[in-house]
């Protein structure tokens, strides 16, 4: 599904390249649950953004479903990730002005899904996540765990093949975090590929495979 070859990314500071990612090679197959670990500044989030096609890299090759991402134009890339990838953030990044229902619906609007169809899909997912009762509330009226639930619902609404989660439980207490991780596991069992970035050994353990990053390199794999 994902094939990264010799991926490097750097910024030039004072004429010297400062590597954020250095010669990263990785393959992720469909149905995997991969955790990326590493200390702060090791390049975890950058790697996730590169996989999510939100960030550029300076060198290397990236194939997504055998398509060469590094040769694509912005527009093609954005079409590709719109179709296949859902994002979950540590800070949830829900839109404060929109209700729960509208937040979840937003990706569908951008994919030109018909209104009636959208309704059905959002109702479906609200039901599944047990948040039907909260659909008219605004994000600020929810607890952190509930907000992240909405965030995941929003990531899942367009039925992506891959979910990229950047420390999804970072702002949650342990009980809420556990619930979220169980939800990921359940999704993975249903066949959704998941890549998460995390600090926590415990959460990382939910993954079937762990990559450890240090200073932009893959240090080891478990």
């Amino acid at each position, binding site marked *: 599904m994902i094939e990264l070859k010799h991926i490097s990314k750097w910024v030039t500071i004072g004429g010297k390249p400062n590597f954020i990612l250095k010669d990263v090679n990785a393959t992720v197959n469909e149905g995997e649950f991969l955790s990326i670990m590493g200390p702060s500044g090791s390049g975890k*989030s950058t790697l996730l*953004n590169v996989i*999510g096609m*939100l*960030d550029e890299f300076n060198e290397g090759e990236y194939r997504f479903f055998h398509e060469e991402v590094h040769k694509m134009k912005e527009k093609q890339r*954005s079409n590709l*990730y*719109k179709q296949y990838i859902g*994002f979950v*953030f*540590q*800070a949830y*990044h*829900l*839109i*404060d*002005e929109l209700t729960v229902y509208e937040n979840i619906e*937003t*990706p569908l609007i*951008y*994919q030109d899904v018909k209104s009636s169809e959208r309704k059905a899909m959002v109702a479906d997912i609200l039901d599944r996540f047990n948040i039907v009762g909260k659909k008219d509330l605004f994000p*600020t009226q929810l607890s952190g765990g509930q907000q992240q639930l909405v965030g995941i619902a*929003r990531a899942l609404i*367009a039925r992506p093949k891959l979910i990229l989660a*950047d*420390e999804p439980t*970072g702002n949650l207490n342990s009980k809420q975090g556990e619930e979220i991780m169980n939800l990921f596991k359940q999704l993975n069992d249903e066949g959704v590929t998941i890549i998460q970035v995390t600090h926590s050994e415990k959460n990382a353990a939910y993954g079937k495979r762990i990559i450890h990053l240090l200073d932009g390199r893959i240090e080891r794999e478990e």
Partner: protein
Amino acid sequence: MLKNYLKIAWRNLLKNKTFSLINIIGLASGLACFILIALYVADELSYDRYHEKANRIYRINSDIVFGGNKLNLAVTSDPMGETLKKDYPQVEAYTRLYNSDGYRMVKKGSQYIREDNVAHADSTLFDVFTIPLIAGEARTALNEPKTVIVSESTAKKYYGTTDVVGKLLETDEHKSTIYKITGVFKDIPHNSHFKLDLVFTMQNLDYQMGNFLSHNFQTYIVLQPGVNYKNFEKNFTQVIDKYVLPQAKQFMNINSMDEFKKAGNRLEYNLIPLTDIHLHSDRRGEMGVNGNIQYVYIFSAVAVFVLLLACINFMNLSTARSSNRAKEVGIRKVLGTERKSLVNQFLTESTLTVFIATVFAIAIVWVTMSWFNDLSGKQLLFFSLFQPQYILFLAALPLVVGLLAGGYPAFFLSSFKPIAVLKGKINAGFKRSALRNVLVVFQFATSIILIVGTIIVYRQLNFIQTKKLGFNKEQVLIVNGTGGLWNKSEAFKEDVSKLAGVSGATFAGYLPVSNSSRNDNTYSTSPVMDSKNGFNMQTWIADYDYFKVMGMEMVKGRAFSKDFGTDTSALIINESLAKILGFKDPVGQKLYTYFQDQSGNKLVTYNIIGVVKDFHFESLRQGIGPLCFRLGKPDWVTAFKVNTSNINDLVKNVEAKWKTYAPSMPFSYQFLDDAFDNMYRVEQRTGKLGLTLAIIAIVIACLGLFGLATYMAEQRIKEIGVRKVLGASVTNLVSMLSKDFLRLVIISTVLAVPLSWWAMNKWLQDFAYRINIGWWVFAAAGVLALLIAVLTVSSQAIKAALTNPVKSLRTE
């Protein structure tokens, strides 16, 4: 403390350069408009106030309706002033001015120079007006026949010195008169409703005095202190009964006022305060072109609005950016600052901004002053700004405007609760503010109203220019002062008409443009003149070829012709008169009038020989009234129909001919279409000034919108990032960011339409002939505003939409 405030205010200005710049540019242009228009308005309001007795001087106006013809005159009959002084002790003094004979030719060396600002005056001139003499004796200056007083600059023009008392001054080549100069007066200030360079004595005026029925004299009276002029006006009924009626009985068979009134006629006198004349009086026989209080109101209102628009920018940007300041407020409050001193701090900031803007505004005023003078027809001086009262005004301006613009933001910003701020809860909720939306709507509605107003003024001007007038104003060359050629005027006319490119020639003392000669006469449909059959109308004298040269059409009968010997008693009437008279076939009908000479009243009979198609002989503000032509030689003006592409050469040739006939007289010409355009100078000025103000208003409004859009985009950067990650395209985002603003502009359009329709409809009511306001005008103004707003907002929206979301979504 103040120093501390100023220091922080200054740093804040520097920190947010974009917003400071937007505020300062907006406020500076708003203030510049405001200062210029304040100067303009102050000048308009200062008219005639320089006279010591200004608040006790009144002019006598006459309102006459006779035979369906309405006359509102700035003049009255010659004995009126003296009668009032004699009969009523409330009248302290009176004086009369007479300028019906127009210009005078004054001899300088071997040449004659045309002087337009001339009048005859009573020797009591100085009892009424404050006209300081720098030479001569005010008490006696105009006492004797053939005396004249001249202005300082006129004295210098003719003699190179003001030491001219006792010198002689010669006027008018053919009926040459020599006057003795008995005084030199200081030039009349520009803010006077009369402009005078030469004032002749009333003593040897060629006029039959003592006639209460002829109205030709501007008459001013000074009332005793404490006399209410409205009450005094009631005495005019007595004056009419005692003096006017006996003469009316004698000359016009009018026996009583009741009978006169029953036939729908009216004769009334009233007083207008001297200081009201310039802005409130637009009558026939004014001493010059007056201003109009309406335009003073309009421009003052617009200036205040433009300044308000700039203040709104300040308010909106300050409150929109409040979250940036919230933390500072929170910390200061925690440190123990009182709210009052926070308010002071914010007010210092706004005042400092306005102060800097005022400095720029004064620079703008300095640069644009001459251009503004062109636009407004004034001679304002930049340096008059440094008179004490203006310095006070300029000093007060930043304080007042700073308070106006900064008051609301100051109280708003200082109201934050420190805990809420420090917990970071303030950030949300400032993105939308109802008040801010209302203010933006106000800005755009104002701009749209100005755009609509400007479009309509320009369309009305265009309508006037292209309207079928009943005569052809194109390619008619008018040579003034041909009366000065005396008995050679006919020969001059013939000579010029032989030039190549000239296809017709006529004497044309009466022209269908304002400030040409006019002549009112009383006629009757029966030989007995009474208030039932009598009526008043314009009586013009025309030459044989007049109708051909002016391109006027005869609808019935014929024009004057040399083939008919009887044309001296012939009358050509216009369609309007034909309609009023109601004759089935006017040609062949008779009209009667009385002619007064030494032997008394003589009846004259005229035969109507033709009807000329109605033509506009006054400005299109007025309808077409009844008018007739008699045959004659009104040779003080000669008109030539020209037919050439090389106008300049032709004019040179005509001038060369003129020089052979009158080497000592100035050659003065104009084109009929230019004279026509002159009638609409005020409207043209209004149009140009309106256009400028509309542009400034919309620029200010857009500056504000730009600032808001920039700030919104900044504020919503996270949301934009999220949406982008969720798959929003640039188009999606731009439309999302612009939508809110554009909705406001659309609401503004909806509000502006009825308001501007109402206002412009009112303005158009001044014109008897006017355009219909089409719906497209509003559509055009709305679309224009929308387009400008789209351009302003979308640049910021696109910039925001193109930002890489990764940058804005970093959690750290």
